[in-house]
């Protein structure tokens, strides 16, 4: 299996401006992404899970080149894309993104057909006819009727808007699609429709997905690999099935056991024991960021940030005492 995307020690810090002087250099930073190295394998789906402040959205936006990384490398389809010389237009032919809020994903003044065709007009050198054909194919692929081309977003439901966003993302036939909480704003029945659609499109177009979500159930359903983030760091990485069955990082254990199961006989929620809150992103605790809340924390945890270690083939955990959760 070859990788479609690989990040190496990717960081994104946001300067925090103190005081009124716009020229002063920032001394404090929000460490949104603090050294993340992960691999997305071609044709698979990786779910990047975590709660608010973990940096998963910033990670997605940095990979999508919507914001410049502070340091680190991103290698997409064999080529590094972080240098200033990168032609983002070429990258976007193969890398696209779908956002969380269907309401703000579409320009309310632009017709559906033109919205779907926008990436084609901006990235490809195609004729008007080629664009028209591609838009028709996209609409059919996402299950929307052809007369939608002339409609405005205001006439569509949330689920339909999300379909248009998906159609727009796949129209240039990308290789990797980043899905930023694609169903969080949708009702359960619409969510199911969209999830099935995403699976179908993955098969038909040989897509790789990077799914950003806080919903463990959706992550488990859709993904092959899982990356768990906490406060800017990658704490666990491996096959979804393996992590769901036997999570090893203390945070992952808490996270997965907090996800409500649709099963009244398995009331996992009432057994969860996790204390404390997510730490400040500007002043994180020294050492492992989870140590103030970790039931297994000891000595070295508050001094040294743990590195990712392999606990079994392909399963990586960043914990000093990972053997305690075996």
């Amino acid at each position, binding site marked *: 299996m070859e990788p479609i995307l690989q990040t190496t020690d990717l960081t994104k810090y946001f300067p925090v401006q103190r005081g009124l002087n716009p020229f002063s250099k920032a001394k404090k930073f929000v460490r949104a992404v603090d050294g993340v190295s992960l691999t997305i394998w071609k044709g698979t789906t990786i779910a990047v899970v975590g*709660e*608010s402040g973990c940096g998963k959205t910033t990670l997605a936006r940095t990979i999508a080149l919507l914001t410049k990384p502070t340091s680190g490398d991103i290698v997409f389809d064999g080529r590094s894309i972080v240098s200033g010389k990168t032609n983002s237009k070429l990258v976007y032919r193969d890398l696209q993104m779908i956002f969380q809020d269907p309401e703000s994903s579409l320009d309310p003044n632009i017709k559906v057909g033109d919205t779907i065709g926008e990436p084609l007009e901006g990235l490809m050198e195609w004729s008007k006819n080629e664009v028209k054909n591609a838009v028709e194919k996209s609409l059919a692929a996402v299950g929307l009727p052809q007369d939608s081309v002339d409609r405005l977003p205001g006439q569509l*439901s949330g*689920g339909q808007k999300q379909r248009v966003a998906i159609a727009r993302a796949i129209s240039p036939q990308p290789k990797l699609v980043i899905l930023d909480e694609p169903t969080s704003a949708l*009702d*359960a*029945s*619409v*969510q*199911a*429709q969209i*999830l*099935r659609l995403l*699976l179908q499109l993955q098969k038909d177009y040989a897509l790789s997905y990077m799914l950003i979500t*806080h*919903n*463990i*159930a*959706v992550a*488990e*359903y*859709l993904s092959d690999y899982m990356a768990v983030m906490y406060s800017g760091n990658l704490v666990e990485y491996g096959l*979804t*099935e393996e992590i*769901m069955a036997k999570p090893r990082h203390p945070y992952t254990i*808490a*996270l997965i*056991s*907090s*996800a*409500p*199961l*649709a*099963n*009244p*006989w398995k*009331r*996992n*929620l*009432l057994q*969860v024991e*996790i*204390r*404390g*809150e*997510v730490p400040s992103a500007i002043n994180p605790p020294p050492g492992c960021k989870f140590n103030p809340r970790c039931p297994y924390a000891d000595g070295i945890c508050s001094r040294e940030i743990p590195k990712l270690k392999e606990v079994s083939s392909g399963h990586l955990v960043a914990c000093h005492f990972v053997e305690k959760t075996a």
Partner: protein
Amino acid sequence: MTCWRRVELSNLVRVEDLTVCYESRGGKVTALDKVRLDIRSNELLAVVGESGCGKSTLALAIIGLLPNPPARILNGEIVFRGTDLIRLDQANMRKYRGTQIAMIFQEPLSSLNPVYKVGDQIAEAIMVKRSRDEGMAQVESDFMQKTHKIDPPPKISKGFRYGKRISGELKDEIIASLKLVRIPDPEHVIERYPFELSGGMRQRIMIAMALSQEPALLVADEPTTALDVTTQAQVLKLMKELMTKVKTSVLLITHDLAVACQVADRVAVMYAGDVVETANVFDLFSKPLHPYTEGLLSCLPTGSKSKVDLKPIPGSVPDLRSPIVGCKYVSRCPFVMKTCSERKPEFIETMENHEVACYLHGEKNGTNSTNN
């Protein structure tokens, strides 16, 4: 032949035939259509449904906070401990709202006053409770005076003024209520302003304030939707524990069926303004009667894609601006029959403590009857 045994459980709230509509420039929407619902003592009833089903409208109607120009209660009654809340005017409703019926909302930042410290706001809640207790004591003592000529006790609490330093007994009570909701370092938290705290802490403070009133009913409208998963677990667990301690019933409004499965005793499923099924959580999950409930359950992702075959419900929710004859689910139901589009099925109890509005179930309703 089985005769239905009517079990008289103590009903805290009985909603009967409630019909609410919203009037806007786009048309008239029937948000609640002859809804019938019971909330029992010491239970957690979860009302689940998707957007537009009317669950929030139901919660607001019970607490008496329906925005009066667009919303109108056309019919029905909400009987709370013998009193029909709908017939009350605002002044009398205030005796119930916030005291016997407490409410917490989805976004605690807008429920807490941003310009006052958290400790002060909790103090206010406690003082309200005290004066309420005194009021009750006053009523009792007036009665005692009239009948038995016993002198009334002296009035102690004078009401709460913001800005005054909190000390002594009141401060201890505030810290105790914060400890009850497991807020760490309560001594410092009472000096904080709401925006300085996280969403989870704010919601726990809301719970503390609501439960300090020792209400008979706590209405929680999507209380954990805006919270992280781990925080949600903590808050729900807390709510369950405090419920038994304070002997409060909880009406939990949520769009998340999984959350309902985890904490509810009974579940009511709503669709397009109707309550379509009510049952205890185990029966609902193992023996769903209404096709919509079945549909909802089978579109939840409960495992990996290789093992689970998601069956989305085809179609979409009908437009409630145009009146619909018959059952509202006909456009999406896989078992639709002729009678379904002619007349709306009645909401009846077909099995013990299991009510449903569907012609597939119950003698009274359709040609099919299921006796279990």
